[in-house]
Each structure stands twice: as C-alpha cells, then as structure tokens.
C-alpha cells in the first residue's frame, strides 16, 4: 500500500516538475510558429536591421532596428539608475545598517517589487514626465529618459536583493582574515567583500536588466511610442515590448504585421535568454570560485 502511495507521489511530482518544461516548449513553439512566417515577406536581415517600422502603411515596412535600439537605450538608461541605487542600498543594508534599519529597509525595498507595473506607469506619467519636461524644456515628457528612470526604479528591488544575497555568500572568514591583517571596514569592503561578491553582483545586474527589457506596461505608458531611430534620451521611443502590446489589437490575425509582432516576441525572448544564461554562467563560476560547490 505505502509502496503504491510512494509511486503515485513520485509520479505526481515528476509530472508537476516537468509541466513547466512543457509550458516553456509550448510557448516557444507558438512563438516560432507564429513568428517565422514573417520571413516569407521580409528577409531576416531586413527585419532586424531595417530602419523603418511602418506596419500599417499601404506599402508596409517591417524594420525593427528602431525598436531594438529603443529597448537598448531605455535599458542602458535604466541600468544607470538601478545599478547605483540597487547596489548602493545592498551595500548599505549589508554592511552599515544596524539590525533595526535592516529590518525596516529590506522589506521596504522588496515592497517596491510588489507595486503593479501600471502604478509605476501612472507615477511616470504624472510625476516623472512633467518634471523632466520642465527641466529639459522638451515638447513632451514621455520619452526615453522617463522610461529609463521609471524602469530603473522598478528594477531596484531585483538588483538590490540579489546583490544583498551575493554579499551574504561571502564567507565571514574572508572578512575576519582582512580585519586581522589590520584592514578597516572600507578596505575590507572594497578589496575583499566586493571582489568576492563580484560575479554575484554582476548576476544581479544582468537579471535586473532582463527584468527591464521584458517590462511592458510601464514602457507603453511612459516611453512616448515613436518608432523612429533614437538619437537622444529626450525623444519619444518605442521599445520592443510596447510595440507588441500597442499593436497586437490592431494587427489582422495571420497577416504579416501579426507575424512580425510574434517575431519581435521571439527577438525579446532571445535577448532575455542571453541575459539569463549569462547570469547563470557567471553565478556558477562564482560559486566554484568561492568553493561553495564542493
């Protein structure tokens, strides 16, 4: 009886574990099936490197380079916001904050992650955009910079909590060895703790980036939506995700536009895949380096 029970449990959990694999394969199958047909109309090179995105013109053009560049610009800007703030707060929480401050700060930062992205979108539209519009005297505040700032803030919890974990992985014995040689707190932090946590911190940054690249709702609301080649942060942009979200409703199912949007999804998927694999490789190396995998 108990044998049978055990077998059933085994079977059940195996099925559960593999179901997510099934979903992954299914989603990829859909992406490929719906995305690849676009290449019957547009060559892959013209799709990726084409500078014009006019999917609804009478002679439509499906070049997504402006969208890719918009994603890269916005991501780079958001990294410039989230990395100093996220890593700074992780260092503060880990090294300087007292027990009480830590008990308050850590949950507070993690609460940032619990705010729905549409709320961040509102915040961007109502607070950040008008502010930047005034500061830079630009025609509209809905631009790449606004998207970067808002996305950067959204990525802080990811970067901060992963960087905090990475700092926590640094063996206490490293710090003690450093102090015992006469190092002060700062020297220990700069020369021992941060280098030892280095790859873990890079992983935090990469996963933060992957979160930024994939974010949709907020970008749609604050980036301005102009599908032109970006040349300045202060100009409206249309990153990959918001393109899909904005146009999916109007694209005729089965048409080239429709397939092109799926192909954009494929490109996005590949970008985040690269980020995640990079993060995984780096963090594995880092665990081996610290001897945690023995």
């Amino acid at each position, binding site marked *: 009886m108990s044998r049978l029970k055990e077998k059933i449990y085994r079977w059940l959990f195996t099925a559960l574990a593999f179901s997510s694999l099934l979903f992954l394969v299914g989603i990829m199958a859909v992406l490929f099936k719906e995305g690849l047909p676009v290449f019957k109309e547009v060559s892959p090179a013209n799709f990726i490197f084409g500078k014009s995105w006019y999917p609804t013109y009478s002679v439509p053009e499906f070049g997504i380079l402006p969208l890719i560049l918009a994603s890269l610009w916005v991501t780079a800007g958001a990294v410039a916001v989230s990395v100093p703030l996220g890593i700074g707060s992780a260092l503060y929480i880990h090294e300087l904050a007292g027990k009480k401050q830590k008990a308050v700060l850590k949950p507070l930062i993690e609460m940032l992650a619990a705010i729905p992205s549409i709320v961040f979108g509102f915040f961007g539209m109502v607070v950040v955009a008008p502010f930047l519009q005034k500061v830079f005297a630009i025609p509209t505040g809905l631009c790449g910079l606004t998207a970067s700032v808002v996305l950067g803030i959204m990525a802080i919890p990811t970067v901060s909590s992963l960087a905090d974990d990475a700092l926590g992985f640094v063996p206490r*014995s490293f710090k*003690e060895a450093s*102090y*015992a*040689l*006469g190092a*002060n707190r700062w020297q220990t932090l700069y020369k021992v703790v941060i280098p030892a946590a280095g790859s873990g911190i890079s992983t935090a940054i990469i996963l933060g980036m992957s979160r930024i690249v994939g974010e949709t709702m907020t970008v749609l609301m604050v980036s301005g939506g102009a599908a032109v080649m970006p040349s300045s942060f202060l100009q409206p942009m249309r990153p990959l995700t918001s393109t899909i979200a904005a146009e999916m409703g109007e694209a005729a199912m089965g048409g080239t536009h429709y397939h092109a949007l799926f192909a954009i999804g494929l490109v996005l998927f590949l970008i985040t895949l690269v980020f995640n694999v990079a993060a995984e490789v780096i963090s594995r190396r880092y665990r081996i*380096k610290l*001897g945690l995998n023995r």
Partner: protein
Amino acid sequence: MDINPARISVENLNFYYGNKQALKNINLNIFEKKVTAIIGPSGCGKSTFIRLLNRMNDLVPGGRVEGSILLDGSDINAPEADVVDIRRRVGMVFQKPNPFAKSISQNISYGLELEGSRKKDFIERKIEESLKKAALWEEVKDRLDESALGLSGGQQQRLCIARCLAVEPEVILFDEPCASLDPISTKKIEELILELKKDYTIIIVTHNMQQAARVSDYTAFMYLGELVEFGHTEKVFTVPKEKRTEEYLSGKFG
C-alpha cells in the same frame, strides 16, 4: 624561572556576550618568544579569549570587555589604542584555512598594500621571505599567480601563516590551526610553530593534548570561562595542581 619578560599581561579579564558571561576573571601572562597553549573543553571560552588579544571581538555585536589586556604595558582596549596597529602587532591564524579568493601572491601582498606599500620589488621580496618562513615557498614558487583556493588545506593554512608573517607581527594567535588538517600537514604546522618561536611570541588553542605537549612551553587550562590552571607545560601535564586539570587531561571529561 621565567627568564623571558611578559609580552602580554591579562588582568581581571571578563567578557560578556550580551548578558552571558563567557570569561570570568582571567589573569595570565604571555611570555616573549614562548609558545603558550590554551586547552579546555569545547565552549569553555578559548576562542573568545584569544580573539580578545587582537580585538577581533570588537566585531561581535553586544560584546563587552572588563579588565585589562596589556601589550608591552599599554592597554589595548584603552580609548587611545590604535586597533589597526594592535592587529598588525598581534596576528591571527584561524581554525579553518581562509585564504582570500585571490592569487597566492595577492594573498600576501594584501596586508602590505593596506599599510601603503606600493614598491614592487619590496612586495616581491616580502612574498618570497614570508612564504619561506612559512615553509611553503618550494611548493608554490612556480605558481604564485594561481588562485590560492587551488592549494591543499595544509598549504592554504601555511599560506595564511605566511600572510600573517608578511605584516611582521610580534605575537601570533593560532586558533586550532590544525583542526581541519591531515596528520602530515599537522606535523608541518607544528614544526613551523617550533621554528617561529625563535622570533615570535605564540599562543595556540588546541584540542589535541599531544600537540599542546609537543609544541608549548606554557599551558593554560580553561573550564567554563575560568582559567583553572596555568604553568609550564611539563608541570601542567605531569603534576597538575588542580583536580579538574588532572581529570581533563586523563580524559574524564571534555
């Protein structure tokens, strides 16, 4: 009888972790260029005691010291005492080898760079000199730029000793330096300690009675936070004054 002067004098030392008293009224002298072994059952306060000698317990939240620890006559816990200077004069080797995740040579140059040494040939000379003193030079001289984490446990521990020697301490604290090592590495470290005794004042915590007997000149037996007995090693081991010492040495508890 004690020809060498006391390098460290501990007077009426108490230490508390929060409300818990871990050391009770310890009085003892550590003599210049001698090896002092600290023995006692697990949890009796050996680590707590030696970590006070280079103020490593400063890092313990809620830790509190009473009494005085005089290093060459001046109190290391006095407000004007310079903790960096104290930790440089009183080096420490830990129970588990803990080289940095850096190269072999960087492990040694670390301490030198902290004090502002930038001269390349000086640092190279120091690396060679301290690795030789730690009896590791021959084994690693061709791989100084490789990661220290690739060394064996015994080699890592000798690297930690070399790292400690590079900043020229006067006193070296060893907290169970052989606890995670095999017998051959242990023997090497013991020989090294006997060699280092010529130039350094050494304190070693050990659970291994034979080791204490082999390497030390003085032995302190601690029990439940108290210093039960302190004296010349051969006396403590052959004619202990205290009944508890005798019982511990004969394996009745601990």
